[in-house]
């Protein structure tokens, strides 16, 4: 490659001294330019040369000129690849190799959609086809061995020398995880708000009752009523705090059961004792369907009573006044089943899978006056699982009632 400086060549005519001086200045300027051009080439400031030839000017690009771009593609965090018209991989950058866990030489030559699970290949093929003319993006899952990784895929036209499309692949795992964390965080915030609300509720009647007790003008019956009111509200608060404490014990694996062989009737009767006031206050009809023969289980009666009471209280809270609630028990092979069914507001199909999650009530039932922290079912499931059992829910949908079934190992 040669650097050619055009010159007008030496003049043959006799010129005046002034003309010679002017010419000299011009040539000096040329020389200065040429020297500076050489310095720029030596200093790496030149990317390409234009060389005149019989077929016109041609541009020769120095390999070093592309270095920053190539380094950028090779060092960026996103996976990048170029594809031919048939969506075959021509090049992959180190990030894409790392992401797929396959070396570049294994990826080159493969069909690009084959890097994705079978059910994604059609949309990927379509994406590459569209990207031959217009940029296109989608979210999909990349195959990494047998595992699937959530990714964002952006594809652009890149029509140079056999290449048709370039694609950029971004791993969304971290982003998805932080979204999940954000959701959990939001649920916790909502829970704290509900908790504050629920703990504040009993305070107003307690304060009222206290002022009745303190007032010299209160009658004996007013004082008795106030005393009972304080007692009732304090118990409500106590139950809330107990539930809260138990849930945290279960999630931290610190809850210990005192299991012994007991008749199923024991925890059922304890639960009924707890829940009957609420059921009756709501005007519900309670229907018991208990077998005549005794059913035995190995269990912590107090904890199981908590489970059944939670289910009965839920049934009472989420059933409009005057509804019906069934409590039934039966033997089913090696198991004992306890079911609580109601004619209540039911549970939507979308809410069913999450109904046992902590705080899930806070999401969907805010604004209902039923109260509660939304931890009762989470607590129930935790306790049942500690007994080696399981709990299931069924509902025909909103307005069609719900049924919770607890399954426990029978002890013969």
């Amino acid at each position, binding site marked *: 490659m040669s650097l050619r400086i*055009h010159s007008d060549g030496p003049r043959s005519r006799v010129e005046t001294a002034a003309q010679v001086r002017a010419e000299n200045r011009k040539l000096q*300027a040329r020389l200065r*330019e040429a020297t500076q*051009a050489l310095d*720029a080439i030596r200093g790496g*400031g030149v990317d390409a*040369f*234009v060389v005149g030839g019989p077929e016109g000017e041609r*541009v020769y*690009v120095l390999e070093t000129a592309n270095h920053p771009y190539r380094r950028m593609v090779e060092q960026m965090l996103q996976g990048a690849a170029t594809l031919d018209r048939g969506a075959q991989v021509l090049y992959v950058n180190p990030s894409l190799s790392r992401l797929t866990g396959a070396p570049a030489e294994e990826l080159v030559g493969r069909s690009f959609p084959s890097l994705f699970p079978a059910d994604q290949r059609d949309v990927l093929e379509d994406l590459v086809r569209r990207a031959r003319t217009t940029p296109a993006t989608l979210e999909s899952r990349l195959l990494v061995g047998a595992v699937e990784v959530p990714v964002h895929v952006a594809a652009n036209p890149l029509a140079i020398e056999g290449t048709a499309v370039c694609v950029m692949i971004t791993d969304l795992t971290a982003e998805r995880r932080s979204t999940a964390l954000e959701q959990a965080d939001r649920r916790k915030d909502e829970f704290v708000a509900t908790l504050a609300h629920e703990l504040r509720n009993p305070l107003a009647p307690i304060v009222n009752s206290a002022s009745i007790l303190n007032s010299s003008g209160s009658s004996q019956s007013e004082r008795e009523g106030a005393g009972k009111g304080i007692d009732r509200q304090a118990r409500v608060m106590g139950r809330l705090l107990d539930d809260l404490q138990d849930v945290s014990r279960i999630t931290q694996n610190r809850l210990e059961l005192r299991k012994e062989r007991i008749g199923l009737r024991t925890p059922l009767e304890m639960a009924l004792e707890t829940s009957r006031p609420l059921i009756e206050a709501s005007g519900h009809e309670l229907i018991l369907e208990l077998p005549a023969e005794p059913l035995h289980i190995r269990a912590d009666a107090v904890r199981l009573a908590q489970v059944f009471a939670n289910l009965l209280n839920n049934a009472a809270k989420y059933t409009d006044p005057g509804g019906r609630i069934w409590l039934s028990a039966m033997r089913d092979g090696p198991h004992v089943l306890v079911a609580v069914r109601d004619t209540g507001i039911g549970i939507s199909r979308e809410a069913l899978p999450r109904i046992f999650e902590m705080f899930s009530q806070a999401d969907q039932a805010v604004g209902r006056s039923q109260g509660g922290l939304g931890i009762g079912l989470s607590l129930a499931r935790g306790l049942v699982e500690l007994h080696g059992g399981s709990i299931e829910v069924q509902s025909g949908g909103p307005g069609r009632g719900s049924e919770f079934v607890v399954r426990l190992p029978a002890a013969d």
Partner: protein
Amino acid sequence: VAALANLKRICEEHLQGSYSIEVIDLLKDPQLARGDQIVAIPTLVRRLPPPIRRIVGDLSNADRTLVGLQIRAGPSKQ
């Protein structure tokens, strides 16, 4: 691209808006190089005021660029 960024910075600092830059992609139109006697890329061609001056390279040295454009007086052999 580096040259253009450097040029814009230098022009903004020293010419305060009284300039216009035309970018010619010689990869697309190499024949345009002939008119300005360009042999290397990038080359800055100062058309106005005359005489035409050419500065080759990425213009990373601001002082040398300013001298080349004769915006600032530099060491002269004459």
